[in-house]
C-alpha cells in the first residue's frame, strides 16, 4: 500500500483539492490535522481522506510522526510526505516512486535544485539555503542539494527507522540525520515547488537551530 501523509494546519482553502488530486496516485491519504481552527478537517473528510486530529497544535514534525505511526499500523509499503498547502505537484509522485524502486533506495528526497521548475525567491536561494546547509552538516545530516524539502517517499525500512522526535520544523534536519544514522540509502529527485506562502523566515531558522541544540541533550524515545 502506498500511503500519503499530509500534515495540515489551517489549510481549508487548498486541502480539499490536494487530497482529491492525491487519490489518483496513492492508495490512501491521511491528513494529520494539527489542531486547525478552520474547516480543514471537514474539507479533508469531504475529499475522502482519513483524518487524524491533534487536539492541540504540536507542529509539523509531530504531525508527520503521527502519520508515520498510522502507516506502521496500517503496514504501508511506501509513505509519501506531501504538504497540505498545495506547494507540491502530484505529477512528480509516480516518477519519484518509480525511481525509488528502481534504485532500490530506502528514502527519496524531493529537491528544488535539480531542475529549474521551482520559482524560488532569491533571498531563499542565496541566503537561507546556504545557512540551512551549514546547520544540516553541523547536526550530522546527509548531504543534499535541497536543505528543507517536504516532499519525501519512505519505504518500509525507512518508515520503521525514522521516528521523528522534533515536533516543530527541525524535523527536516532530524530526518536527514536519522537517514545517516541508520545507513538508509537515499536518492534525490527533482520536484516542482510553487510558493503560496513564504515558509521559513530567519526567526524560524533560529528556532530550528535552538530545537536541534536542545534535542542533543534529550534522550531519544
Amino acid at each position, binding site marked *: 500500500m502506498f500511503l500519503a501523509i499530509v500534515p495540515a494546519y489551517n489549510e481549508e482553502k487548498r486541502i480539499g483539492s490536494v487530497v482529491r488530486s492525491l487519490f489518483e496516485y496513492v492508495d490512501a491519504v491521511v491528513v494529520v490535522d494539527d489542531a486547525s481552527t478552520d474547516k480543514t478537517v471537514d474539507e479533508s473528510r469531504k475529499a475522502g481522506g482519513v483524518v487524524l486530529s491533534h487536539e492541540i497544535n504540536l507542529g509539523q514534525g509531530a504531525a508527520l*510522526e503521527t502519520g508515520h505511526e498510522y502507516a506502521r499500523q496500517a503496514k504501508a509499503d511506501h509513505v509519501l510526505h506531501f504538504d497540505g498547502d498545495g506547494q507540491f505537484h502530484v505529477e512528480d509522485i509516480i516518477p519519484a516512486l518509480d525511481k525509488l524502486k528502481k534504485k532500490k533506495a530506502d528514502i527519496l528526497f524531493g529537491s528544488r535544485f535539480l531542475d529549474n521548475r521551482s520559482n524560488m525567491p532569491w533571498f531563499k536561494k542565496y541566503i537561507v539555503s546556504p545557512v540551512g546547509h551549514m546547520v544540516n552538516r553541523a547536526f550530522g545530516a546527509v548531504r543534499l542539494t535541497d536543505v528543507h524539502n517536504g516532499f519525501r517517499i519512505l519505504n518500509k525500512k525507512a518508515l520503521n527507522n525514522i521516528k521523528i522526535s522534533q515536533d516543530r520544523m527541525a524535523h527536516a534536519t532530524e530526518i536527514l540525520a536519522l537517514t545517516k544514522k541508520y545507513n538508509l540509502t537515499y536518492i534525490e529527485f527533482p520536484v516542482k515547488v510553487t510558493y503560496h506562502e513564504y515558509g521559513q523566515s530567519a526567526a524560524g531558522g533560529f528556532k530550528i537551530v535552538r530545537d536541534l541544540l536542545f534535542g542533543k541533550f534529550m534522550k531519544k524515545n
Partner: protein
Amino acid sequence: MLLIFQILFILFALFAIANVVSKKKEGALGPKGILFWILFWVVAAMVVVWPDSAQTIANKLGIGRGVDLVIYSAIAVIFFVLFRLHVKMESLKRDFTQIVRDKALKK
C-alpha cells in the same frame, strides 16, 4: 545588633522553608529536593547573619570579597536549576506529544 535587612531576610528564609515543608506535605517535593532547599535557605540566612563567614571562605578559595563568592555561587545554582527545569519541560513536552498522538490515532 541585627540590621533591618538581616531581620527581613531571616523572616523571608523562614517563610521559604515553611513553603518547602508545605510542598512536601502536598507531595510535590522529593526527599532530595527538601534537603536541598532547606539547606539552601539555612546557608543563605547564615551568610546574611554572619557576613564574615562568606569573607573567610572566599579568601580561602582565592576570591577577593565574600559578596563575590555569594554572587558566583548563586549564578551557578541558578543556571543549574534552569537547566534541570528546561530538560524537565522538554520531557514533559514529549509525554504530552505522545498523549495527543495516541488520542489522534485512537479515533
